[in-house]
């Protein structure tokens, strides 16, 4: 062993293996594997639960095969690295095997509620104990070695294989979306070819893999070329390209509900509501740099104000039309923003976060309380909010026939408000106000010294954020037709924060991407609902550790967050522990 693997390498392999083992056990105990063990990816071949479990040794094997950061040690050859991956996978598999052995001998369900016999049978491939342990360890080792092999192989192949796998996973995940629509449009042949029992068929999965891998292989050299030529192009051309991209996206968004059917429109409405919230919070957090954890309060105020003003059943009972009420709601929201903002502005960042969290909770408790029940309806909330939008649209425009019902109708106004908010926020970020916010975020004292009235600009950020949040609340109330205090808990604030953090603070494309990923995807994975907040928490931690600037970063923000990088270098070296992968 001494020649094959040095002591230091052995330690590293053992550490990664141990982390992988912990993550695997965690996935089993927390119930993620159980929740997804019946969701087919490729029917009869592999389920999502298995994918989740196998991803751990795969990633760990890949990780183990990465060259060590310590340059003084011997550089391992490819064969050696594959051995590393194999070892890591073996460790993870062996630990899981032992766990299964213990769990099937002793009943642990009193404490670990998710460790059920079906789960154990699933993990041990239905084999009897002994054989099962061998199989689990073997599969772990094999997958770990595959992960290492992936790293050792040339970049083109690696990318091709990865995108092939992603394509398969993606196609199977959009099944609840695609299949009903295909059947509705009488493409039953296609849907039967693609899907069987909520998973891909074997043929379809091979096809998806080939298409994904092939596309990556062909696209890769071209991709580089395109990027280079865009970067070389003059500013006007680049701007024009961007304009066209946005135009194409807008058109795509406009025709989306026509093509996709009601389910996707419903998901899109939800995404839109959260996107609006996120755009508002982005002004407060991303632009002004004030961490507001009580953002849900504005959402709630918007919804309740709308309910009070428009519902004939509310305590006011005046039943104003929605568009008359909307300006009042927004004004009220702005005032709430000022009222909440004014006292807390002099606080330092982290205190501000906690105080706003407190405000959010106060709002929820008040809405829920019996004390305000005569006005706000207490736990029962307010019902009977009329929708200003028609129930169905049936239009004949030339040769095209536009037909929409329910969520498809609401989709357009929400999309319009989102677009409006996005344009507004974009223009704002490049204005004098935006620059003042930038200065304030980077260094408050310097900003103050150069003549930025920090208090006023913070208030402005709060008020604008509040107005946008209220708008979303108003639309939410209309969409539901009723408001309940239960819809306005702290998790709304956290969700919106996670959207911004994932996408990138201060970056509008980032926020849009974040809303689609964090709000849209969980709707496709129904089993997932229970684990949403868990994943959001993990996203917050992982993003802060790995990529604090977000997926689509705002340039200025990126620079700020990496300012301390050079000092940090030595610290991160020993901080090289695998982040929790349990959530992806």
């Amino acid at each position, binding site marked *: 062993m001494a020649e094959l693997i040095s002591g230091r390498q052995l330690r590293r392999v053992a550490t990664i293996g141990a982390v992988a083992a912990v993550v695997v056990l965690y996935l089993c105990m*927390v119930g993620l594997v159980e929740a997804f063990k019946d969701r087919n990816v490729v029917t009869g071949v592999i389920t999502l639960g298995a994918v989740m479990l196998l991803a751990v040794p795969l990633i760990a094997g890949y990780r183990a095969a990465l060259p060590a950061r310590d340059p003084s040690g011997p550089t391992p050859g490819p064969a050696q690295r594959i051995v590393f991956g194999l070892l890591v996978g073996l460790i993870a598999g062996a630990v899981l095997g032992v766990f299964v052995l213990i769990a099937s001998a002793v009943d642990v369900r009193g404490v670990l509620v998710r460790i059920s016999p079906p789960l154990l049978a699933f993990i041990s491939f239905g084999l009897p104990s002994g054989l099962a342990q061998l199989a689990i360890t073997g599969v772990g080792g094999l997958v770990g070695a595959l992960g290492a092999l992936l790293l050792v192989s040339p970049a083109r192949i690696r990318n091709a294989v990865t995108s092939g796998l992603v394509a398969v996973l993606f196609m199977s995940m959009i099944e609840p979306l695609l299949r009903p629509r295909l059947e509705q449009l009488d493409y039953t042949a296609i849907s039967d070819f693609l899907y069987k029992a909520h998973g891909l068929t074997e043929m379809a999965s091979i096809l998806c893999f080939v298409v994904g891998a092939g596309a990556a292989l062909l696209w890769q050299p071209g991709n580089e070329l395109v990027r280079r030529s865009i970067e070389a192009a003059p500013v006007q051309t680049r701007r024009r390209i961007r304009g066209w991209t946005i135009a194409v996206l807008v058109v795509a968004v406009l025709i989306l509900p026509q093509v996709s059917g009601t389910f996707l429109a419903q998901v899109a409405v939800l995404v839109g509501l959260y996107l609006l919230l996120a755009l508002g919070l982005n002004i407060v957090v991303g632009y002004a740099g004030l961490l507001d954890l009580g953002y849900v309060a504005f959402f709630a105020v918007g919804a309740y104000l709308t309910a009070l003003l428009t519902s004939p059943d509310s305590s006011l009972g005046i039943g104003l039309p929605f568009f008359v009420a909307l300006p009042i709601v927004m004004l009220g929201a702005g005032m709430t923003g000022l009222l909440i903002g*004014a006292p807390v502005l002099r606080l330092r960042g982290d205190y501000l976060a*906690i105080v706003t969290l407190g405000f959010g909770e106060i709002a929820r408790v008040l809405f829920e309380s019996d004390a305000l029940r005569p006005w706000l309806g207490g736990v029962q909330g307010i019902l009977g909010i009329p929708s200003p939008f028609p129930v169905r649209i049936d239009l004949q425009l030339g040769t095209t026939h536009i037909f929409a019902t329910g969520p498809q109708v609401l989709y357009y106004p929400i999309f319009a408000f989102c677009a409006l908010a996005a344009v507004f926020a974009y223009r704002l970020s490049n204005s004098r106000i935006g620059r003042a916010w930038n200065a304030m975020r980077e260094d408050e004292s310097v900003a103050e010294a150069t003549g930025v009235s920090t208090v006023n600009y913070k208030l402005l950020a709060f008020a604008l954020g509040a107005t946008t949040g209220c708008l979303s609340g108003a639309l939410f109330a209309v969409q539901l037709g009723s408001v309940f205090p239960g819809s306005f808990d702290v998790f709304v604030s956290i969700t919106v924060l996670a959207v911004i953090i994932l996408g990138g603070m201060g970056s509008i494309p980032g926020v849009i991407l974040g809303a689609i990923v964090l709000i849209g995807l969980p709707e496709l994975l129904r089993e997932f609902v229970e684990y949403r907040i868990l994943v959001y928490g993990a996203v917050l931690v992982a993003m802060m550790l790995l990529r604090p600037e977000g997926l689509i970063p705002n340039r200025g923000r990126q620079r700020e967050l990496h300012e301390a990088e050079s000092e940090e270098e030595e610290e991160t070296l020993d901080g090289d522990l695998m982040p929790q992968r349990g959530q992806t």
Partner: protein
Amino acid sequence: MRFRLPQRFNLVSTILWGLRIVVAVLVLAGSWATLSSGKLTPDAWRELIVFGIAQGSVYGLIALGYTLVYGVLFMINFAHGDVFMTGAMTAFFVARNFGESGFINANPIVALLIIFAVSMLTSMLVAIVLERIAYRPLRRAPRLVPLITAIGASLFISNSIRGIYGEQSQSYPSVTALQGRLDLFGIPILKTQALVIASAIVLMIALVYFVERTRTGRAMRAVSEDKDVAALMGINVDRIIVTTFAVGGLLAGAAGVLYALVFNEVDWFMGFLPGIKAFTAAVLGGIGNIAGAMVGGLTLGVLESVGPFLLLGGANVPSPNQLRDVIAFTVLVLVLIFRPNGILGRSEPGR
């Protein structure tokens, strides 16, 4: 796009003064109405106060964790409430086992000590892992970054526990030895409450001894003063920071069992509100100040238990106890706005 706000714009101070006046009027009018109506007997008030002290000691113990970490790292360990919850939830299974086997009544002292030990060790372990994974790599990052991580970690821990142990709330077995009342200087106190207060005092004294008298405690204070200089003096800063988290975790674990004894019920979400309230307590007493955490905890506990009845009871507000969280959060907001250094806090410029 030119936009200019008026320069001498006193909106903020106006609102702040308005807030002060509103709060003062509400407090005075509410208390006057209640006291003059005589709705509650002196006995009932005493009951509320003792309950408040017991609850406040639990808050104080959790608050110590916030204060210790804040003193060393200047960050709010938002996940501390969940560290507290993890201990209480894990020890529940031991307690349930003891309850079913009758061990808890046959030998209450040993049983309780074991339950405490399990809870404290679990919380300590979680706190150490938390520091290692979530906070250490970010030590030199901008201030909001570790705070966001902490929020994420808090959600991650609580929802993991929800997944692992299930989401229904569990009730601790009752201990016969702790039922009934104890006569303390003529004041009858529930035995559980007496135990909670006594344990809090013992732990507090142990902590003060640890920080003031031991080598590690001195190193901790040195790191709190200046990390770089402490490192030059041969102190292993990383180890001291981990120790700080571990001590905070131990105290939170103890608080978890005490909380379970007072309220009888534990669930995966129990860390959230006590966590924020303990933070309030830490700020109220002066964050970074050990005695302050306990003082703040007791003050907040009493305010929270007496407040709703005192302020709202007289005004015929239905079910005032629903609004206790509002009182706690209002205290938090008011303290942070008007006296961010707390009752016992040193006034430090630039905070």
